[in-house]
């Protein structure tokens, strides 16, 4: 582990940011818990800011529906509705 720590120290000294999944800044609001609980099992949540802000409510609904119908995400209809509302409120087209 000595060399491993050295690698980390060198990386820090060089200002290199290691690629590692981190929490993203999320505003509180209805649907946040459902969004984090359901979506993060298959992909990091940075996909959402990446795809913002250009989708409207219909667009976010289409994305969530695709995750359920095409990619088989086990999300209940109630949760799906809350997730779409959360995404549209926080990452939707203004």
């Amino acid at each position, binding site marked *: 582990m000595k060399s491993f720590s050295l690698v980390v120290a060198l990386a820090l000294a060089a200002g290199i*940011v290691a690629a590692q999944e981190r929490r993203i800044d999320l505003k509180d609001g209805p649907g946040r818990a459902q969004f984090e609980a359901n979506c993060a099992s298959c992909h*990091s949540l*940075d996909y959402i800011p*990446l795809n913002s802000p250009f989708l409207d409510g219909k667009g976010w609904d289409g994305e969530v529906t695709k995750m359920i119908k095409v990619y088989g995400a086990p999300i209940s209809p109630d949760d799906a509705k809350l997730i779409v509302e959360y995404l549209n409120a926080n990452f939707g087209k203004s």
Partner: protein
Amino acid sequence: MASRRDFLKSTGGLVLATGGGWFAGHAHGAVPDTPGLAPLPAGATASGDLEALAGKVPLIKRSWRPPNYETPLSYFTTEITPNDAFFVRWHLASIPQLSAATWTLKVGGDAATTPFQINLEQLKRDFPAFELVAVNQCSGNRRGLFEPHVAGVEWGVGAMGNARWTGARLKDVLAKAGLKKEAVEIVLDGADGPVMPATPDFQKSLPVWKALDENTMLAYEMNGEALPHWNGFPVRVVVPGWTGTYWVKQISTINAVSKPFEGFWMKGAYRIPLGKFPIIDHFTTQMTDVNEPITEMVVNSLIANLTSGQRVTVGQPFVVKGMAWDGGRGIAQVDVSADGGQSWRSAKLGADLGRFSFRSFSLAVTPAAPGPMVIMSRATNRAGATQTGELIANPAGYHHNVMQRIDVNAV
């Protein structure tokens, strides 16, 4: 199939033990938009940090899991993209760490007479090795520059790279399996997989004619070294001229089939509307009345050494340089304009590394008078196809080859 735990371990090759402290100094939106093209969605620019995967230099992070990272613009001033700067693109988040000692490839299918299995040593020993230089470009490279934006991985211009690949011909491997005359497609599956069992595994097919093309490869070397884990170690498919979607990483199973493959990643993804693009190769067994699978790359170029708003000096030449590429006809010429496309001059082409490779171009431009100038490049391939000035809209955001219009200021 790997567990998520394996994945997190593999991603965290440089796991930092400093807890949340390393958020400090973490520069959001550190990467400027590509000069002369439409901007990325604001959220993509803001979250597009430079981050280093294990064994890679810092690349532009698009998503952590599955990992999608693009190569910064400055790497496109040389023909060969270094392995440690080569872009990373995965669809599904279960990505096993494979070992050269235990990797095996199964070859079979209902349209093969003699199924077999080989290991890496046998692949290298039993089939003649060959090499070629070829561009690997994601179908969705530049998706983030579409206006209006379309959902997906919001790539800038760096979901591409050019490498010297070494490996066995797929046609030799298929010959050993004995293709029946009924074979219509060759199905490719890698060792990666989905997190949820209901998610369609990433599997692709090629028409038999493309699989049997003498340039289609099972590659075990990239620029003279083993492939990086992130680029498909130990063996990936190389389909020169065609977009990266067919270049299946961590290839584990190849099946010759007698009916068109029905998998989601063929039937439901990577499709382009019929008749919109000047392409030559069509994947006929997968065509419908409205769309077809993406095949060859469209002709394109990228100016890699200028910044937007750059100051240049009247009477002093400055060089415009970058790369041009296409779907394998080969680049015939690259023209550069310094007046927004009113007049063009032929750029000097660099070394010819083969028709599937990046072709570098350069031209010295001398500003004659102070004021704004608009720099553009336009590649033409040997089939006479060239770039577009206006975006060709399509639902999934593929085949962006709009010419750059870079503003510079002569003083």
